[in-house]
C-alpha cells in the first residue's frame, strides 16, 4: 500500500514539475510585464529598474532556477499587481471556486445515483426515457449559454434571484443550478449503465429468491457495486467541473480562480498564474489519491500493490 502510494506520489510530482515548466515558459512568452504594468510614457531607465527589481532582466533559465529554489523554500513570488504574496492572492480566490465546485459535485453525484438507479429498475420504461432525455440534454448543453438564458429568465425576467455577484445564499442558486447540469447528465448515464448490469447479476437473483425487498436490492445490493465505476467517472467529471466553474464565474462575476486566472494572464502577473496552477494541480492530485482510497473502501478486493 505504501509502495503503491509512493509510486503514485512520484508520478504526480513528475507531472507537476512538467506542468510548472510548461506554464513558466509559456507565460514568459506573452511578453514583458513592464509593457502592461508601467505607464506607456515610462522612460527606458524606469523600465530597466522595474525589470531588475522583479528579476526579469536575467536570462530565462536563470529565472527558472531562481523560481524553483524559491518554490522549495515555499516562496511563491509576489503578485506584480497587488503587492501581495502570489499564494495569498490565489488562496483568497480559492474558497469560492471550491465551494461552487464542491457543492455542485455533491449535489450532482447524489442526484445522479438516485435518478440513475430508479431509471435502471425498468430500462425502457417511462421514467428511464424521461431521465435519459434529461441527462443527455444536460450533458449536451453549453453551460455559458444556459447561464445567460437562466439570468435572462430568472433574474431579469422573473426577478427571483440576483443577476451576479456573491453575498447572500440567493446568489449561489443560479450558478450551482447551471453548473449542476453537465456532471449530473454524465453521471446519470454511468450509474444507469452500471446499475443495469448489477441488477442482472446472480447475487441479485439470490437476493430476490430469498425474498429481500426490492428497494433494499436496488439501493443496498446493486448500488454498492455500481459505485465503483461511478467514482471513477466522478473523478474525471470533477476535474472537468473546474472548466465549467471558470466559465460560470465569469458570467456571474464570482471572484474565484477562473476570474483570477483570466485577469492574471491578461496582466502578465506571472507569479499569480503559476501559484493558481500549482494549487489547482495539487488539489486534483489530492482528489485522485482520495479516489484511490475510496476504491479500497468500496471494494475490499482491491489491494494496492506497485
Amino acid at each position, binding site marked *: 500500500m505504501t509502495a503503491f502510494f509512493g509510486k503514485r506520489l512520484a508520478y504526480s510530482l513528475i507531472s507537476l514539475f512538467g506542468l510548472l515548466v510548461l506554464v513558466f515558459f509559456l507565460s514568459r512568452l*506573452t511578453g514583458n510585464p513592464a509593457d502592461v504594468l508601467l505607464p506607456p510614457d515610462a522612460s527606458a531607465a524606469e523600465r530597466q529598474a522595474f525589470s531588475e527589481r522583479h528579476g526579469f532582466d536575467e536570462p530565462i533559465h536563470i529565472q527558472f532556477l531562481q523560481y524553483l529554489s524559491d518554490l522549495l523554500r515555499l516562496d511563491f513570488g509576489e503578485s506584480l499587481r497587488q503587492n501581495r504574496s502570489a499564494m495569498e492572492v490565489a488562496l483568497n480566490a480559492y474558497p469560492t471556486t471550491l465551494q461552487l465546485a464542491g457543492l455542485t459535485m455533491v449535489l450532482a453525484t447524489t442526484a445522479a445515483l438516485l435518478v440513475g438507479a430508479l431509471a435502471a429498475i425498468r430500462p425502457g420504461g417511462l421514467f428511464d426515457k424521461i431521465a435519459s432525455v434529461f441527462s443527455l440534454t444536460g450533458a449536451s448543453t453549453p453551460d455559458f*449559454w444556459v447561464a445567460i438564458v437562466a439570468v435572462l429568465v430568472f433574474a431579469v425576467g422573473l426577478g427571483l434571484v440576483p443577476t451576479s455577484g456573491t453575498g447572500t445564499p440567493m446568489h449561489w442558486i443560479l450558478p450551482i443550478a447551471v453548473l449542476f447540469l453537465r456532471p449530473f447528465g454524465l453521471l446519470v448515464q454511468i450509474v444507469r449503465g452500471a446499475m443495469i448490469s448489477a441488477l442482472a447479476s446472480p447475487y441479485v437473483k439470490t437476493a430476490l429468491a430469498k425474498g429481500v425487498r426490492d428497494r433494499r436490492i436496488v439501493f443496498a445490493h446493486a448500488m454498492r457495486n455500481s459505485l465503483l465505476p461511478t467514482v471513477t467517472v466522478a473523478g474525471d467529471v470533477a476535474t472537468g467541473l473546474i472548466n465549467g466553474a471558470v466559465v460560470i464565474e465569469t458570467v456571474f462575476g464570482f471572484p474565484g480562480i477562473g476570474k483570477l486566472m483570466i485577469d492574471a494572464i491578461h496582466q502578465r502577473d506571472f507569479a499569480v498564474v503559476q501559484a493558481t496552477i500549482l494549487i489547482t494541480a495539487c488539489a486534483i*492530485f489530492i482528489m485522485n489519491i482520495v479516489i484511490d482510497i475510496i476504491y479500497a473502501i468500496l471494494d475490499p478486493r482491491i489491494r494496492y500493490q506497485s
Partner: protein
Amino acid sequence: MPRIATAFRLLANDRLALGAGVVLAVIFLLALVGPFFVSDLATRPDLLKRNAPPLVLENGFFHLLGTDTLGRPILARLIVGAQFTLGIATAAVLCSMTIGGFLGLIAGFSDRWYSQVILRLADIIMSFPSLLMALIVLYTLGASLTNVIIVLAITRIPVYLRTTRAEVLELRERMFVSAARSMGASAPRILFRHISPLVVPTLATIAAIDFATVILAESSLSFLGLGIQPPQFTWGAMVAAGRGYLSSAWWVAFWPGLMIVITTLSLNLLSRWARMVADPQQRWRVQSLRR
C-alpha cells in the same frame, strides 16, 4: 455493404437516433454548402434592420430568426458559423485521433524510456483542467484558427492514447503478432500493418463521442474570447456577442446557443445508439424493436 445495410435498418428502428441522424446530416450539409450562398448576407451590415425581432417574415426568409446588432440576419450567420464550428471540431478530433493513436501504438508496443515519457505527458494533460491550459496557451500563441485546433486536439489526445495503449498491450501478446515477428516483420510493420487495423474501429467510436465534447470546449473558448477571431466566427462567439443585448434583443445570443445544444444532443443520441448496437450485451434492445 450488407453490414452498412444492417446498420441503417437498426437505425430506422430507433426513431430518436434516426431523428438525430437526419438533423446532423442537415446541419453538416448546410455547413458544407450553405456558406457559398449566404456568406455575403451574413457579413454585410444593414443598420436599418438592426435588432429586428425573430419570427417575422417581411424582410425575407433569412430574417426569420431576427437580425443581430449590426442588422445581419442571424439565420445566415448561423450557417456560416456552423462551417467554422464543425470544421474546427472535425479537424481537432481527427488530429487528436491520429496523434493519440500513433503515440498509443508506440507506448503500448515498446517498453523503452520514450513510452514512459509519452505516458507522463498524457498524465500532465489529463490531470489539469483543459480550459485553464487552453487559456494560457491561446493567450500566449494568439488565437488563430490553427492554434485553436491544436489546443483542442492536445487536450483530447490522452483519451485516444490510453485506449490505444490498452488495446495494444493486449493485442501484442496474440499469436498473429508472434507469427509476424517470427517471419521477420519489423516493429513498425507489425504495428501499422497488423495491429493498427484492429485498433481503428475503437478509436472511431471514441471520436464520435468526443465530437460533442470538442464542440462544447470550442464554444467555451470562443465565449471567453479566445476562439478564432473576427471576421471569422463560431456559434460560441455569436453567443458572446449577443450577451450584452440580452434584455433588449434576446434572440442574438439565444439561437446560436440552441444550435450548439441541438448539434451536441444529436451527436450524443447517435453515439449512444452506436454504443448500444456495438455492445453485444445491449444489442437486443435495438433488435427486439424489430417487427
